[in-house]
């Protein structure tokens, strides 16, 4: 089939090279089928940090376009839920609240929970939403779920001062333990990211995932101490209960505003769980990355 002189020369040259181990062109990057299981290329990720910044910036910029009250939504959602929980679970059902006033007890949980559930929804769809982009341009795909979980932090930042305001209103002065809040928040971010790696890759292949996620979020909320204190869970189930990283996050938040007592032990279990899910998520996502555009 090959017609011209140049071809057979090139062809022959390469053919002799293809055999087995061939030296990489000096300074070149090799594109190959790949072994499938790879870790993250952190250097490459770092080179694309500006893209991450721009994607987060765009999400934030676009999020409340064409809404009437704009960013106020990020306050209204946890606030209204807090009122409903206070009325039903608190005043009516009289669930214990670890000696915290009901509104504060619920808001401290709903603040990280609103972030987490929102981030899960965003991250699930991120690969599909960027379908056109990823089939045309290469960048480390992992930036997409990362941007999705980070952009939700703005809502958190807007709604967080309300927590401090409420504490002051109830005569609680924010103590040093509040300094640990960012750590608990980080745990929530990493959890959302770790789960998001699985969900976004799976959703790209099986669109069923996006129908499952709202249900998953609902179940997850009841499996986390959002509407009740974890002290309500029988002692022998505690360890199992602690496998849920969000338990650690919410317990951490409540502990931080109380400013006393012991740092929940469950937190340690949560961290370990997250790390395992994250590790698996990275491997799975990276494995899908090379061919995800063929199926998306």
């Amino acid at each position, binding site marked *: *089939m*090959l*017609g*011209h*002189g*140049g*071809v057979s020369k*090139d*062809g022959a*040259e*390469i*053919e002799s*090279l*293809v055999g087995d181990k*061939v030296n*990489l*062109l*000096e*300074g*070149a*990057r*090799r*594109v*190959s*089928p*790949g072994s499938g299981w790879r870790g993250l290329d952190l250097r490459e990720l770092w080179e694309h940090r*500006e*893209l991450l*910044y*721009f*994607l987060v910036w*765009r999400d934030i*910029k*676009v999020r409340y*376009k*064409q809404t009437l009250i704009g960013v106020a939504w990020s306050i209204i959602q946890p606030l209204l839920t807090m009122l409903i929980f206070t009325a039903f679970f608190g005043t009516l059902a009289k669930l214990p609240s670890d000696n915290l006033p009901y509104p504060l007890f619920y808001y401290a949980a709903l603040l990280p929970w609103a972030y987490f559930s929102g981030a899960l929804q965003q991250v699930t769809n991120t690969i599909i939403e*960027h379908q*056109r*982009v*990823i*089939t*045309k*341009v*290469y*960048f480390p795909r992992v930036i997409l779920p990362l941007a999705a979980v980070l952009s939700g932090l703005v809502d958190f930042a807007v709604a967080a001062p309300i927590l401090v305001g409420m504490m002051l209103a109830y005569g609680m002065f924010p103590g040093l333990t509040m300094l640990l809040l960012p750590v608990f928040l980080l745990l929530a971010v990493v959890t959302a990211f770790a789960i998001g790696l699985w969900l976004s890759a799976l959703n790209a*292949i*099986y*669109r*069923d995932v996006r129908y499952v996620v709202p249900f998953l979020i609902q179940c997850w909320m009841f499996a986390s101490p959002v509407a009740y204190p974890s002290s309500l869970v029988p002692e022998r189930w505690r360890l199992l209960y602690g496998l849920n990283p969000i338990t650690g996050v919410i317990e951490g938040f409540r502990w931080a505003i109380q400013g006393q007592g012991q740092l929940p032990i469950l937190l340690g279990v949560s961290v370990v769980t997250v790390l395992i899910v994250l590790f698996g998520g990275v491997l799975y996502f990276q494995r899908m990355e*090379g*061919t995800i*555009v*063929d*199926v998306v």
Partner: protein
Amino acid sequence: MSRTVIRVASVSKRYDIGQRERYRTLRDVLSRALTVRRNGIIGKVCGDGVNAGHIWALKDVSFEVQEGEILGFIGRNGAGKSTILRILSRITRPTRGWADIRGRVGSLLEVGTGFHPELTGRENIYLNGAILGMKKRDISRKFDEIVTFAEVEKFVETPVKYYSSGMYVRLAFAVAAHLEPDILLVDEVLAVGDVGFQSKCIGKVDDVARGGRTVLFVSHQMNQIRRLCGRTIWLDAGSIRDMGPTPEVVSGYERAMSAGYRVGFERPEAPRVKARFLRWEVVEPRSPQANVLRCHGPVAIKFVVEVNEVLPNVQHGIGLYDNERRLLWGTAVHRFRLDRGMQEFIYKLPMLPLRPATYSWRVTLFDEDRLLDDWECVPELLIATAPMTHWRDEWAGTLNIPCDFTVSQSSESEG
């Protein structure tokens, strides 16, 4: 110049059929798992080929690209041209084989990816630039240049959802064109925008190449390939059919393509109008393909017009365009009468001395001053005459004029 920047070795890419469907659901996967099992058994029983479930978009493709080279890719749709660019730009991985790429790759595979309608022109330039791999610093540096190139100066602060489609495409291309990769992949993007903008885009690709960077260029427009590419690869059904100097590969491709054209192309049904063009053909010299011109010499072109009522005073115009939509020749006939029925417009030309390539006719018909029909004739006119011009493309020009050359003793005596 002779540094190898890309080496592609036995690259193959397999797509599972149905993999690129809009989307899959678990149900599909489960039902497919069942059918595969069943087919597997039946297949064994009947001796069927079981591996019918996939296609090879690329089969064992190997080539090298030198630094500063402009390499063209031609071939029919689905031949694998875009797949090779997608692999080189790391969008997807090969199923077998590998490719080494030295330097930063930028692609113009499709412009405007990542534009967000709610964001302004300025914001989209930054966002799109970042997606394409530009540094923020570089975008800022080139910002004015991009805006000027796109001709959207007045609308920089306007959300792009209010842009006209022309403005949108121009801005998108402008961002992509100001990437400064070591290797630029261009896929058919030059088909966008109006004629003026297109030539601007081609100029930009020219500049990039002249700047010593490597360009891989996919196009269906043989003129662009001829003009830009030194070497060309012809892909056919996933394999390299031919590779070498552009003029040879392209003319081979055109010969093969013209053999496949159908005779007597008819326009699809249109609503009944007073008069319209139905088809066109080359009537002299005769050839099995009515849109192909193979010999030098006198030419006659026929356009068949369907006239549904008597038109006492019509006007008619004709233009011949090349692949880059440059008007090469045009004329018009004023004030003549058309009777009902099928009419034939015949043009006789002493010769059509154009270089082998595809061209297109455009014909118009007016009743008094009202436009009745404006037809971009299909199929395109394919000139497949023997080239008689310089063997190097850049010296060949547009016209293909036969000439005789002799050397003889001058009759003028010296001093």
